[in-house]
């Protein structure tokens, strides 16, 4: 009781004198995220993965490319090789650690690029409306009509294998999806009263897009884009698995899954490990993006 009575007189004058600034949008999002244990755990795992990828040379016990014929396909728990060895006798733990680098790059890089290009296309189409909208969006729909895996494979196949080409094809796959979302949100916002009100107070098209459209549209697109990271991870793994992404002997989880598939009957636990990593990473990105969506919903 004593604590309460002493606290209240301190709190009220502060609130009255200082113009209590309403907390900004992003600090509210952060606050809400902090109260979401699932999203926090997912974020924690992702941070750890990134750290592992960054400090791979210090963490990996062995060279990930150096194999040995005598210690091929050791099971999990072998002394010295905690996670066993692969079909060429390379240490699985080291390869998984190094693999995080390429896998994360291939998962994460295409999304922000596609986010920028796709948002620009979608917002332009949504704001312009009419014929321009139809023209842009029908073109986008042509790309959207292909299943994403098929499109990625086709593009990578056409461009040839390699990391850069895989990144380019993944970006192209995501642009139509993001453009669709951007267009639909922009079309909704464009018709709202505050856009009219801005125009009625003298704002021109550029100002309206920059201030009112972007401010209201980026949130939803951003959330959608974060959910694409996990898709990108899986697609990238798929490309590598098909030999269209990273080339051996580089360590990448999708590629490792491919090369280990011959060992699936002899040593299934080791063969599944890269898949487990892909699963964990993509589910963490998904959970985090779910949490972000909940936190960015102003109405709740």
């Amino acid at each position, binding site marked *: 009781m004593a604590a309460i009575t002493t606290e209240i007189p301190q709190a009220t004058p502060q609130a009255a004198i200082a113009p209590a600034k309403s907390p900004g949008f992003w600090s509210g999002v952060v606050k809400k995220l902090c109260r979401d244990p699932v999203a926090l755990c997912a974020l924690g795992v992702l941070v750890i993965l990134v750290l592992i990828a960054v400090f791979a040379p210090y963490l990996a016990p062995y060279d990930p490319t150096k194999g040995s014929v005598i210690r091929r396909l050791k099971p999990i728990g072998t002394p010295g090789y905690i996670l066993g060895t692969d079909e060429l006798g390379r240490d699985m733990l080291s390869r998984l650690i190094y693999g995080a680098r390429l896998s994360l790059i291939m998962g994460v890089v295409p999304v922000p690029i596609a986010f920028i290009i796709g948002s620009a296309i979608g917002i332009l189409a949504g704001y312009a409306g009419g014929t321009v909208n139809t023209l842009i969006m029908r073109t986008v729909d042509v790309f959207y009509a292909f299943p994403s895996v098929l499109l990625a494979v086709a593009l990578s196949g056409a461009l040839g294998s390699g990391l850069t080409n895989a990144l380019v094809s993944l970006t192209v796959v995501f642009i139509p999806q993001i453009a669709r979302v951007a267009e639909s949100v922009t079309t909704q916002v464009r018709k709202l*009263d505050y856009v009219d009100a801005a125009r009625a*107070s003298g704002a021109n098209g550029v100002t309206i897009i920059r201030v009112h459209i972007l401010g209201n549209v980026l949130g939803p697109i951003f959330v959608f884009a974060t959910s694409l990271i996990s898709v990108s991870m899986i697609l990238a793994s798929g490309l590598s698995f098909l030999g269209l992404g990273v080339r051996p002997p580089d360590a990448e989880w999708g590629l490792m899954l491919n090369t280990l598939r011959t060992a699936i009957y002899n040593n299934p636990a080791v063969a599944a490990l890269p898949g487990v990593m892909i699963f964990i990473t993509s589910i963490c990105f998904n959970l985090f993006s779910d949490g972000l969506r909940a936190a960015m919903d*102003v109405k709740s």
Partner: protein
Amino acid sequence: MSATNPVIDISNLNVTFNRGRRPVKAVNGVSLTVGEGEVVALLGESGSGKSVTMRSLLRLHPKGTDINGAMKVAGRDVMALSTRDLGNLRGAVVSMVFQEPRLALDPVYTIGRQIEETIMRHEKVSRSEAAARALALFQKVRIPSPERRLQNYPHEMSGGMLQRAMIAMALACNPKVLLADEPTTALDATVQIQILLLIRELQRELGLSVIFVTHDIGVAAEIADRIAVMYAGRIVEEGRVADVIKAPKHPYTQGLLGARVELAHGRDRLVTIPGSPPDLANMLPGCAFAPRCPQAFEACKSTVPTLTEGGDAGRVACLQYA
């Protein structure tokens, strides 16, 4: 008509929307003048073209809308303005208050920021100066604890408070003309009267010319100097408030006044105007009100009445007075 040098001068305005299969003629030959420091209420039911008339003054219609006629605001020909000049006109000379303040303010910015942006759009001032002016405006529209309220987002404020903020924003650049699009419709009754009194007071103080769109004849009587009654895209009666309310000439105005709650005298049914407004995409020849008019005669079905002087300063568009 009474004003010698009108601030707003609309003559023979026609607005046609080309959306959908058929063009819709929302405004049909409207002429209206508003003098300096005068409040004119545009009265009419939904779809009678009152908001469309008002928005034409800022050319705020969607693309593909045909606007014909002559409109002059504060000596400027609105129809001839370039996009850039139109932007300079909007907000600085003519500003607008919307019906639904919750929708007319951007949810992702603080209200203070939005007012500052409006000021900085039209005048070369620093942000801190704009912020100081926003604060003064908030005090003028009597928002309690204005410093704190400026930092609020629209969802943190009540409807009445938001409408005050909206008015503050509309007045930010000292306009000559205020267009109010049913600014009290979305508010509850006690707040309505406060907002009306505020607009009236600010209008007198700043000498604003106001077009006030409403469908509530009581609100119109409260705030306006003159009333223009619209039906199906035309002005059917226009005159000083007292004249129109005391001695309505057009059968539609008579019907509107007859439908007031006060006249029901405790009966549970109100007097109504039978029928419904005509389809603007499919207008019949003759007076648009004729099918619903109790006083209609044969000629009403074929001749469109023009707005003619009906004694005093009023004008009426009805064949009875032609």
